[in-house]
């Protein structure tokens, strides 16, 4: 290979790498000790109710208010997964991930190119930020289309749909926790340090009872359907800050 061909190869490789880097939807905020090497992370999402395994369609769980309830549907989005370092450095993966607790394939999230090193905690959003929460912004899959938030009510997508039934009197009544609109974006903080190496597997466990716990002890009987009720959507969104832990 002569010199001109070698140089041409290097230029082409450089153009390719720069374009590839520019298309990756991540942001890196350098700090005093920004990691150089990167690793991949696989998040496995699992579910529990205060230590009990999740079984659908059975009213066997109890929240802090005392509602005895079950779950028939749990669909939501996770986005803007952010790794926060001890020195303030951050790495954010912006991709919007659809999850359905009943569909195993959706409960795995892959994040590439995470700078290796120590991180003090994770943050993520349940829902879509205002830049993403636009009608038809997500791929036209059946799942995304079923999560549409109607245009007359603001457009975009449902951030979470959690439905089920709770015991009331001698029978059962349905509940539907549907949260959406930009002001109700759910900010989650996972205050657990993690170390990122070349390949990493992290189990994120959602404790469903946290949706009804802190700071508002939520009573399903007084607010079983919250879509369109801004106050109640904000209560559920606010309770979501502690919804995940690392197992």
């Amino acid at each position, binding site marked *: 290979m002569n010199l001109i061909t070698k140089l041409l190869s290097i230029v082409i490789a450089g153009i390719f790498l720069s374009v590839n880097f520019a298309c990756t939807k991540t942001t890196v905020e350098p700090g005093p000790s920004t990691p150089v090497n990167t690793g991949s992370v696989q998040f496995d999402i699992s579910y529990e109710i205060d230590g009990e395994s999740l079984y659908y*369609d*059975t009213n066997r769980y109890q929240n802090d208010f005392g509602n005895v309830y*079950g779950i*028939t549907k749990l669909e939501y989005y996770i986005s803007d997964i952010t790794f926060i370092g001890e020195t303030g450095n951050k790495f954010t993966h912006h991709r919007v991930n659809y999850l359905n607790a009943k569909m195993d394939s959706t409960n795995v999230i892959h994040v590439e190119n995470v700078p290796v090193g120590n991180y003090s905690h994770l943050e993520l959003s349940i829902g879509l930020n205002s830049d993403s929460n636009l009608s*038809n912004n997500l*791929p*036209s*899959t*059946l799942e995304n*289309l*079923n999560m*549409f938030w*109607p*245009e*007359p*009510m603001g457009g975009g997508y449902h951030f979470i749909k959690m*439905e*089920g*039934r709770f015991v009331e009197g001698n*029978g*059962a*009544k*349905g*509940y*539907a926790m549907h949260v959406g609109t930009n002001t109700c974006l759910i900010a989650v903080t996972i205050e657990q340090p993690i170390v990122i190496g070349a390949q990493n597997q992290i189990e994120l466990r959602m404790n469903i009872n946290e949706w009804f716990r802190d700071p508002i002890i939520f009573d399903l009987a007084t*607010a*079983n*359907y919250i*879509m*369109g009720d801004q106050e109640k959507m904000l209560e559920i969104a606010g309770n979501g800050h502690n919804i995940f832990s690392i197992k």
Partner: protein
Amino acid sequence: MMRKRKNFSWIYIVAMVFTISGCKDDYTYVPGIRSDFDPTPYSLEYPEYFPNLQIPEDNPMTVEGVKLGRSLYYDVKLSENGPMEGFSCSACHNQTTSFSNNVAGTSVLAHVNLAWNKSFLWEGKVAGNLEDIMKFEVEAFFKTDMYVLKSDPNYPDMYDDAFGSTAINSQRTAYALAQFFRTLISGNSKYDRVYRHEESYTESELRGQEIFLTERGDCFHCHTFPLLTENLFHNNGLDSVHSEENYGRYNVTGNMTDMGLFKTPTLRNVELTAPYMHDGRYATLHEVVEHYNTGVKHSNTLDPIMTKPGKEFGLGLTQQDKDDLVAYLKTFTDTTYINNPNLGSPF
């Protein structure tokens, strides 16, 4: 020194056994395909805002496959010698009514946009894709007699054109029907044209849309854009006590929380598909709207969407609201679909 010759005859015996056992299964055996088999790819078109459509690799869309499937759809030979003798698919699914029918006291689900379904029939008895439901229709519902098709003067050649040999079996029959069903796409109603900015709603239709897409009517949760069904199951308050014929999804899952749940039908062409609900109990769209307005009956499995605070005694719609909502529902009618000659009978 002579080497001892090894006896490999057992290998041939084993191979024969596997070959013979493979021939016995009429559904899965794939006869030899001729070397010059070269079907014509079928270009399936649908609106860009529809969900992405997955075509199974083992049943690609071809012109010849669709032609065969269309012929079978309209042919009573599909049911000859079976429990539904004298019936074709089209006997109960008429194109002019969006491939449903208007027979009082019954309610067949319309054949429209089923390519996007993951479960089929009112109770979701069959899960999977079109190939799965067509297998059910051929083998369990019609119990199609393959010898009837083989004896037909045209079908052997049609199967040869579609699949590369004249062999006729239940899998190929189901696959051809699945290909035709995939072409049953409705996406040119006024609802679609307005979405594409090609047309505008009337004032009444706009008011009806507001009821449909907000908490006032809350229709959108189950009848989602653009298929106008989310393909799930709900108890929409038809009964407070469920008799056996209204067990619904419970018949499939055996789970008491599925008691009285039925599949959300598409609202595409709903103006044409009376009567309504799984048992055809409502004759008109106004009756359906009135059910949701004042007629919802509570039971333990009533869908959470139907239990909104303030709506326990109905939606509170005025007569004008109800007329507007019906006007909006009529915008889902696609006349190009019900008049498309490519979907009609080839006979």
